[in-house]
């Protein structure tokens, strides 16, 4: 399969490549994977092969990086990935309850995706929001000092946005 990234993604990719000396194109790998994951939703082997071609490196150099860093999805995920911080300070401020509440609300367990493909629930390690716990991240957005009401609102809003498209 011959993947083509959008013009917008390609111009972002070229901008990032420009941050480095021409013989150091590989340095752009992490940001480039973010860009293509945003467009494709996840990093399929075909997407990673295309990245290797663009950066003039071997596919294995992309695979080993994609599987090392926790932000890259090497399997399909829902439209919104809810990443709940479960590390120390969040735990003592109620992360376990937050996770249990979302599991019940969405009817899925950690690691699963809702049947409509809208939400994936994940637990992650410290996101640097310890003073504003409990918290989760969806996309680029941090949601902090969570309460059950806040979680209801966020999920309602994201669900209704999806219906409008």
């Amino acid at each position, binding site marked *: 399969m011959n993947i083509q990234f959008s013009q917008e993604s390609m111009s972002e990719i070229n901008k990032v490549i420009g*941050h480095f*000396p021409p013989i*150091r194109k*590989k*340095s*752009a*790998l*992490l*940001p480039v*994977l*973010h860009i293509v994951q945003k467009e494709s939703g996840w990093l399929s082997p075909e997407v990673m092969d295309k990245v290797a071609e663009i*950066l003039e*490196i071997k596919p294995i*150099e992309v695979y*080993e*990086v994609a599987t*090392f*860093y*926790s*932000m*890259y999805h090497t399997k399909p995920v829902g439209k919104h990935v809810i990443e709940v911080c*479960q*590390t*120390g*300070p969040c*735990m*003592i*401020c*109620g992360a*376990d*309850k937050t*996770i*249990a509440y979302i599991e019940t609300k969405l009817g899925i367990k950690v690691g699963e995706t809702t049947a409509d493909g809208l939400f994936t629930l994940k637990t*992650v*390690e*410290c*996101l*640097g*929001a*310890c*003073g*504003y*716990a409990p918290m989760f*991240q969806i996309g*680029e*957005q*941090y949601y902090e000092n969570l309460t059950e009401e806040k979680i209801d609102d966020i999920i309602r809003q994201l669900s209704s946005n999806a219906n409008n498209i």
Partner: protein
Amino acid sequence: MGRKLLLENIEKPDINTIDGYLKYGGYRSLDKVLKGMSPDEVTEEVKTSGLRGRGGAGFSTGLKWTFIDKSTDKPRYLLCNADESEPGTFKDRLLMEKNPHLLIEGMILSSYALGCNTAYIYIRGEYMFILHILERAIQEAYAKGFLGQNINGSGFNLDLYVHPGAGAYICGEETALIESLEGKRGNPRIKPPFPAVSGLWDCPTIVNNVESIAAVVPIIMMGGAEYAKIGIGRSTGTKLISASGNINNPGVYEIEMGVPVEEFIYSDEYCGGIKGGLDIKACVPGGSSVPILPKSLLFKESNGSPRLMTYESLSEGGFQTGSMLGSGGFIVYDKQQCIVRNTWNFARFYHHESCGQCSPCREGTGWMERVLHNIEYGHGKEEDIDLLWDIQRRIEGNTICPLGDAAAWPVAAAIRHFRHEFEYHVKYPHRVKDADHVYQPEMKYQTV
């Protein structure tokens, strides 16, 4: 009220724009440097200031700068470590989010001192929303001529870029950060050679924490000697403390080094006491890696004098009775918190974040996590406590990078100071599932 050097204007709504930053006195340190200071004079001021690495290691920033290899004609690089991932630490985020130009000005000053013409801010991927803030601020700085070619007519050139990581605690270790910036897995390198000699693309490289680089701005403005007057002894200047856990006022506080720990926890100016008026059980004063201190050791040094928020006072007594200032990730535990559960939680974190290069860390962190999980969930045996001690002892000091130590220390300190809680879990497995022990969902154990 202590002096505020980094957070002075943090609440001003327009401080995140270049016009706002200029209005509150921004880029004056740059002006001062470009008009009349040599790179070596800048380095000398930073050395005089006594500034120590704010990422956690506490090594003299100015001294680190003097290690940069000037004997080669290879380009030199300055990398800002904005990978802030140490559990309990969220201070750099505040600086970058609210006052991005402070970091940018610090990067220009530091690059000038080191003779770097290209610099990168390596920011953790989860902070992508802050990356956008920094990029916008960098564009503003280019437009004003503070970045790019011939900055303010000085002949000094600097290009500054922001680079995202992608979720890996290990990339806060400086050689792993360099590997990651080269587009590889974040596997730490064996030192020597140190980055100052052979770092990014084998070129001389300095890696400094966000807060350290930001601190260069007030240091240049007030002079290193003035800065060194703040604080106590070898702990000079101000420090950002990220306060979290069971306290009334969690958040980021800038303190003059030397505030008593007791005051920091109970004063309304800072943490405002323990939530719900409960008693305090313990505190991790410098991020998850540093030893946890029980209440009995937290407020006083061994000679009875008050324990202070300084590098020296927090580590007084070594690991037997002390801890470390570390990154300033200050986590407070009330009397209801379960130390075993917290230790298991941290062990899971380190297991998840181990890069896998060194077997003591790769295997040991997972082993500790499983043993701790067993104890926490009522399946532990008496001998497991000694086993845990043995595992952590064999990890510490036997790995390429300090992640192994960071994983071992919290386990060692928890057993050292709270052995009775471990024994309680082993003796009364049915009781540790009580609701007032700590909230515990029934969960099937899965290793990560």
